[in-house]
């Protein structure tokens, strides 16, 4: 490993490329098959079969959908603001895909004498002898998810259609309200961990056979964060921006072809990120039996936990009816916001006495 670029060995760049591709393909495939899984699971919950025609039990359905949308006609409404209309799906999609970078999906593996932490934005420094990651990982995720709101508000505004504008406005007000509550509810976790680095938060949850998980120490924070995060990414039962019965399709009413698909992908990619972040913060991340001894088990546990939470999201969708808009805003501002603050104060006082 004689060659070094910018003070980093060649292996670093190979590992970086591999991790970026693995993370990107993982999110992409999960997004594609989440759409299929959602239809299938909700189908079975409603005593239907779901997609059955394309492939064995409809397994090729996401590919068929993708190809169909790819070949569809692209429509840019004559009254739309073209630039904003074109860039809105990109602004929605990019933050959704890059948030995954700071989430650790496994421990450190060693290939050819070079240690590689299984996290996209992290590397092992041979001179310092320790792993460096983005030490404000959580803030990075919050910052990126606060950008997703522009994609939606721009889509609504640029379309110049009444349904789109109303959908976009509703969505943005909902997203910023719940972003606030979600951001406040996880502060209690950092009071316990004393760090914002996701790698260290996972390490702190490793002991006691799972009873060190923050979901047991901060059940209220875990519950509030998951609900707020669902509302922030406009999942059911908070999918008011796309309430078909009132707003046709909300902010993406005027979109067609791949641009529509990109909003769809952004929504599911956000769901993956939210489930991955909940896993990391509250469910011990990649920790599990023998995960430290056998490093390759880490990603398996991580993916299993993420998929369980995603199944839970779909289960909620099949069970709970949609909220009304005023109830939704009341819940965010009058219940979760004060509750998160109270939780911080209570955690502070209890933590001082123990």
């Amino acid at each position, binding site marked *: 490993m004689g060659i070094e670029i910018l003070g980093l060995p060649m292996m670093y760049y190979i590992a970086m490329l591999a991790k970026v591709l693995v993370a990107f393909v993982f999110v992409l495939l999960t997004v594609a098959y989440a759409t299929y899984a959602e239809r299938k699971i909700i189908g079975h919950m409603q005593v239907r079969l779901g997609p059955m025609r394309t492939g064995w039990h409809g397994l090729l359905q996401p590919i068929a959908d993708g190809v169909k949308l790819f070949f569809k006609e692209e429509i840019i409404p004559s009254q739309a603001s073209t630039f*904003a209309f074109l860039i809105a799906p990109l602004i929605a999609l990019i933050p959704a895909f890059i948030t995954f970078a700071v989430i650790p999906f496994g421990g450190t593996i060693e290939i050819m004498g070079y240690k590689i932490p299984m996290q996209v934005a992290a590397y092992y420094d041979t001179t310092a002898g320790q792993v460096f990651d983005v030490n404000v990982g959580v803030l990075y995720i*919050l910052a990126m998810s*606060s950008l997703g709101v522009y994609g939606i508000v*721009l889509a609504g505004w640029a379309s110049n259609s009444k349904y789109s504008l109303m959908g976009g406005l509703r969505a943005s007000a909902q997203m910023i309200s719940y972003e606030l509550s979600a951001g406040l509810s996880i502060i209690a976790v950092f009071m316990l961990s004393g760090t*914002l680095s996701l790698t260290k938060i996972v390490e702190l949850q490793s002991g006691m056979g799972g009873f060190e998980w923050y979901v047991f120490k901060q059940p209220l924070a875990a519950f509030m964060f998951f609900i707020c995060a669902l509302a922030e990414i406009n999942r059911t039962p908070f999918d008011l921006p796309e309430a078909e019965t009132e707003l046709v399709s909300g902010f993406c009413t005027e979109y067609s072809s791949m641009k529509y698909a990109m909003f769809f992908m952004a929504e599911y990619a956000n769901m993956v990120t939210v489930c991955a972040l909940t896993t990391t913060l509250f469910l011990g991340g990649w920790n599990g039996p023998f995960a430290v001894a056998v490093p390759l088990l880490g990603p398996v546990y991580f993916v299993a936990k993420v998929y369980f939470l995603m199944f839970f999201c779909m289960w909620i969708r099949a069970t709970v009816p949609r909220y009304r808009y005023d109830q939704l805003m009341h819940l965010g501002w009058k219940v979760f916001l004060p509750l998160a603050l109270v939780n911080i104060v209570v955690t502070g006082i209890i933590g001082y006495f123990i």
Partner: protein
Amino acid sequence: METLFFAIVSLVAIISAILVITCKNPINSALSLIMTFFCLATYYVMLDAPFMAAVQVMVYAGAIMVLIVFTIMLLNIRVNATQKHSHRILLGSIIGFFTLINTIVLLVKSQAAKPVGPFTGDMIRNIGHSELIGREMFTTFLLPFEITSILLLVAIVGSVILAKKNI
């Protein structure tokens, strides 16, 4: 390499800053401003200040710009409603010129190109940037921190009064 990266980011920052004031459509101006904030965040990362970078994106790009975009949508500014004011452009360029001279003088005098102060890059790496900021803020600068809460309270009251006419 770092200099090259800095040059690229600076170029993007300057181009998007120029677009902010030259775009016909106010929404596109707002988008360019978000891009400028992003470049500023990149500078913070390059200066070993990741916490500042995250806060820059969260507060400026994520919160304040949402308000500005809402305001543009609320006022519904027509694209052709903006007029040219040549005397304002003149005034602006005079102010800009003197600010530029001021900045150059300050840069030459203070040797700002070199890192100054007790906090070194190694310290930030070992202790953590957010920890250092927090330690200073909650001990040395305690009074300004508490005054911030009063400032925020005034802003909350002010925003409600502005938004609700019939109080």
